[in-house]
């Protein structure tokens, strides 16, 4: 008796496995719903919270200008807590909210599970801080895009700059074992390989520091002893600031080049201007260097609302993601996912974001992200380095 019932029960439940449906999209009145998936809590909370502010500003600007398709837009925030598990739930939440498209998310390994879910649910998502190659290169997604650049582009830019422009022979690369920093570091190493093979330079140091720590004196002493010509650090600005200062204290004098996660006003604060001055950063153009009308408006309103422009470049890409989505909706004249995705792939004429025109490649990467070398000036500003 008991066995039969168990078997029956299991069969019943198993049968249910076949019956699963999926949700469908919303109505055509009221504001167009868009979700922002961002790390509001957790390790990258500061980036997520600034992304939220940036998107708020962009939303206000767009709505003031009449919205899109005659409707306003509204953005809901879902927090992914900077971790992959929460990201999957957050993505599913965004899907269940039946939004038109999603902005998000920040880190690559956090974005990845979300990307899969959005892709499966045929929902357009636009990442703004996830730079790992494989999100697009491996997966060739149909509904995923990103407004930020890719690790390899930055790595290549660095390699070229270091060897060809600076003529560095002994190159040190350091990262912090985070998805992002290690990604850029790996790509930089790859990009240097041809030069190494040609005997033009060598990589004399390749190691990681632990993020969240404060004392890197051991690492920089080791680094100093390798006598590098240039030192590339691809991690985040907090550690970058500490590293530069501790390196200078330890007597390491070679030029420092930071990756685009290091560029942040706090880098200068932490390192101290005496040390930060002259440090270089590989970076997409900053919002302050883009002179379009949108950029102007964005900066003004952001300053008005939050006191200062975002201290990091990534939140601006979140705003760009919103501009991209809205532009695609406009060009497609539809809020259907497929139409938006098609527009994003093929028809982005006239779509401008805070950092300029936005176009995507067939696999969803942003076209033409021009990297520039930034330099910290003596008065604590980032300007494009003039060779």
């Amino acid at each position, binding site marked *: 008796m008991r066995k039969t019932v168990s078997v029956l029960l299991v069969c019943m439940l198993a049968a249910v496995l076949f019956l699963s449906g999926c949700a469908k999209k919303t109505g055509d009145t009221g504001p167009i719903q868009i979700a922002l998936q961002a790390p509001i809590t957790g390790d990258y909370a500061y980036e997520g919270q600034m992304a939220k502010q940036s998107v708020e500003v962009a939303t206000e600007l767009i709505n003031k200008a009449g919205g899109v398709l005659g409707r306003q837009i509204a953005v809901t925030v879902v927090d992914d807590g900077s971790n992959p598990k929460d990201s999957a739930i957050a993505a599913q939440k965004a899907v269940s909210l039946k939004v038109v498209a999603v902005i998000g998310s920040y880190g690559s390994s956090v974005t990845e599970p979300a990307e899969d879910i959005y892709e499966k649910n045929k929902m357009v998502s636009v990442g703004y801080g996830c730079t790992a190659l494989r999100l697009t290169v491996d997966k060739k997604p149909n509904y995923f895009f990103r407004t930020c650049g890719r690790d390899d582009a930055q790595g290549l830019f660095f390699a070229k700059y270091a060897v060809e422009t600076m003529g560095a022979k002994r190159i040190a690369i350091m990262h912090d*074992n985070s998805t992002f920093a290690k*990604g850029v570091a790996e790509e930089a190493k790859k990009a240097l390989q041809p030069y190494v093979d040609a005997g033009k330079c060598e990589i004399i140091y390749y190691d990681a520091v632990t993020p969240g720590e404060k004392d890197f004196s051991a690492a920089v002493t080791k680094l100093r002893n390798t006598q590098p010509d240039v030192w590339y650090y691809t991690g985040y600005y907090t550690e970058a600031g500490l590293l530069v200062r501790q390196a200078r204290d330890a007597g390491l004098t070679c030029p420092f080049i930071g990756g685009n996660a290091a560029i942040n006003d706090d880098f200068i604060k932490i390192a101290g201007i005496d040390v930060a001055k002259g440090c270089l950063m590989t970076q997409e153009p900053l919002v302050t260097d883009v002179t379009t009308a949108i950029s102007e408006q964005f900066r003004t309103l952001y300053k008005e609302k939050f006191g200062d422009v975002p201290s990091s470049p990534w939140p601006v890409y979140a705003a760009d993601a919103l501009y991209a989505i809205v532009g695609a909706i406009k060009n497609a004249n539809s809020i259907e996912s497929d139409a938006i995705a098609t527009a994003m792939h093929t028809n982005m004429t006239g779509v401008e974001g805070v950092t300029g025109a936005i176009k995507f490649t067939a696999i969803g990467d942003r076209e033409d992200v021009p990297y520039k070398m930034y330099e910290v000036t003596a008065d604590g500003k980032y300007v494009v380095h003039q060779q």
Partner: protein
Amino acid sequence: MGITDNILKRIGLGKPSGDQPVTFWSKNRGWLLLAITGAVFAAYPFLPFISDYWIDVAFFVGVYALLGLSLNIVLGEVGLFDLGHTAFYAIGAYVTAILNTTLHIPIIVLLPLSALIAAGFAYLVTSPVIHLKGDYLCIVTIGIGEIVRLTMINNPFNLTGGPNGINGIGGPNLFGLAINSSTQFYFYTWIIIGVIVFGLIRLQHSRIGRAWNYIREDATAAEASGVDVRSYKLLAFVLGAAIAGMAGNIYASKQMSISPGSFTFIESSLLFCIVLLGGLGSIPGSILGAVVVVVFPEVFRQFASYRLLFFGLALMLMMIFRPGGMWPRKREGTGLDGLGIRGLPRNDEDLILLGKPDPAILKPATTAVVRGVRLPPVTVPMDEEMLLQTHGVTLKFGGLTAVNNFDLNVRTGKITSLIGPNGAGKTTLFNMITGIYKPTSGQIDFLGRDITGLKPHTIISYGIARTFQNIRLFPSLTCIENIMSGPHCHARSGTWAAVMHTVAEVREERDIVATAAYRLDEVGLWSYRNELAKNLPYGKQRYLEIARALATAPHLLILDEPSSGLNDKESEDLMVLLQSLVKEGFTLLLIEHDMQVVMGISDWVAVMDMGQKIAEGLPKDVYNNQRVIEAYLGKEDD
């Protein structure tokens, strides 16, 4: 059926006891409730207000319930302080990811495989550290968790994909049915949980589950009652790791990509909270804990940056207002039914009688088998009269000689007493005989076998049981459960038998409870069988401890100051009991300070001072020995 009933009873839905009329409901309560629970689970994803999001939340509740259940074995059942459980979860996930993406082994095949590898890993890393106590084990588990995570990040042999992790993991495929939607994953996961819960409940109510609890309550007493503490601790880690490995497999196949960010110390501490929030050792509690830990932050997701603030607060409040957890496991008052043992006689007298030992068992065995224990062959010339002999036993602690070249002879069927000043080394000698200490030199022979340096749980299965100077019971277990630790060392059923309820296992369980019942009755504590041991008055605790030792069916019973804390009258009652035990066929060895007892019942007395024997003989000779008077007895003033 028994177990379902017991669970229901615990949550207050059990069969009515007494003479209430039997209705359809009361008769089939267990099945009906199981069916209702099943129906609710089955219906959940199809409820109108349940979106895929909530189904996914339920899926993650499932993953965390599995992890909670797996940690509950280690932390809840055995009481091992494990704050690095995520390591096993990570191993399961990475094994799945690596083997699926490189060798394209199907996920469903990897489900048992990742469990197996996680279990093997757990065995390897925990066996050198399993002896560590409390907080020291805790930091080691944290260390293991961190080592695993950092290794994944550092990408050794290009296997783990570094901080990016691994992507492109496939979904499970059940005989042609591909699982990929949220609803399918929901059912897939919860059916697995159902199967595992079934197994875990069976384990909890077997000698294995009880052995874990004995260790949690008092590891030394457990070892002295015949539980192989080390192996059972390892078994807990291995089983826990296996289940966590499965959870890793499920997680990886749902997420399709994994990275080290999912396996941080914070995850481990969340699992810890799940077990504690639910209630230590409680299976439904662990599931409930998972519900809280997963759903709570979801409900507060819109509060964004404040949600973890609330979560932290909630954890503290929970511990303040429900310190035992939300659904603690109740042991007392559920009666013998609560033990989940089948095939017991209907009334108490029959049960007690069933446990009456075969007198042949209590005779010192010249044969090679005693109650299922295969004894090693006789290695020393066997003296029918001498049960135990120590030859020149010496123990040195650093420079201090605690026991010096001591010869002790214990005659079969007699009461031998060891007396001597405090600190003379008597208890140390006992600890050597029972295997807690290993002698520096000398030999201990028992039943014609050299038992020097064997583990306590081995020695006890040969037939030497003991009690402790300071009573050591399993305080939060019932009296009958306490005594059921006695026959443990003679039982043979393993994990699989316990889960499957094999015929031999059922018979063994019945024998265990019957033996315990008989001994409990013998020391007059039958009416206390369902009380927690800690609630017994001191004197009764002494008797309970003696009953526990007797339940191991020993040939030699070693009692360390049994009359300590008893007044003269109570000591006399004790003497009566001890003498009756000798009549039953046991041999007794005592340490005692109460001369009334020593002189009253001993057949032979040995006197120890500063680790050495200063006298031995018949009680009255020893009592009048000048050296003994000087060193130990003194002269009465009055």
